[in-house]
């Protein structure tokens, strides 16, 4: 059975701190690892990682995949209160069903 585990489950930091969120996966026919940010409504897409060791960056957010360790990290530098959200990690299968298995998420709270 496919499994995705995120840690920590919740995190409270102050503005300006740097945070690292972790995601590990055990997925049959793994294709890609995806990160999403969820505030009040639907998850919004952050990164899609398919190749190991190649960092993807978007502003203060960056992420990298380690296929040997079956894991990924999401880094947020200089956190702001607007970064407060649930961060979801999902592993996408490479079959034609394209099924994604989600972790339970990390709830990040950034205090002023």
């Amino acid at each position, binding site marked *: 059975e496919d499994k*995705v585990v*995120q840690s920590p489950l919740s995190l409270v930091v102050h503005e300006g701190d740097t945070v690292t969120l972790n995601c590990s996966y055990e997925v049959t026919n793994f294709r*890609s690892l*995806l990160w*999403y940010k969820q505030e009040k*409504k*639907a*998850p919004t*897409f952050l990164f*899609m990682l398919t190749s190991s060791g190649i960092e993807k960056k978007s502003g203060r957010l960056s992420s990298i995949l380690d296929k040997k360790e079956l894991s990924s990290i999401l880094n947020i530098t200089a956190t702001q209160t607007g970064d407060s959200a649930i961060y*979801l990690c*999902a592993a996408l299968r490479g079959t*034609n*069903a*394209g*099924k*994604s*298995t*989600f*972790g*339970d*998420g990390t*709830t990040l709270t950034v205090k002023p």
Partner: protein
Amino acid sequence: NAGVTQTPKFRILKIGQSMTLQCTQDMNHNYMYWYRQDPGMGLKLIYYSVGAGITDKGEVPNGYNVSRSTTEDFPLRLELAAPSQTSVYFCASLSYNSPLHFGNGTRLTVT
């Protein structure tokens, strides 16, 4: 560009009632999915479809049914609603090698 549209946004059902959650996408995606999200949890896959006329069960299919008569539409049917089905439901679609596109969700309460 509408993307994935879900209706209704909110619904309250009594135990034993039935309803259909509607989902439509205008991106010509073959793959469509229904997820549920309980408080403090990630998304659990209920049903998915790889194309019109083809559906399959996900992790938590009991109490639900789906159909996929067209590429655009993927309705989710709840028969005999139970309190355990109180959740937020997300419909999503994708094409190969792209991230999931989500609808805005339906918040369902069964009392």
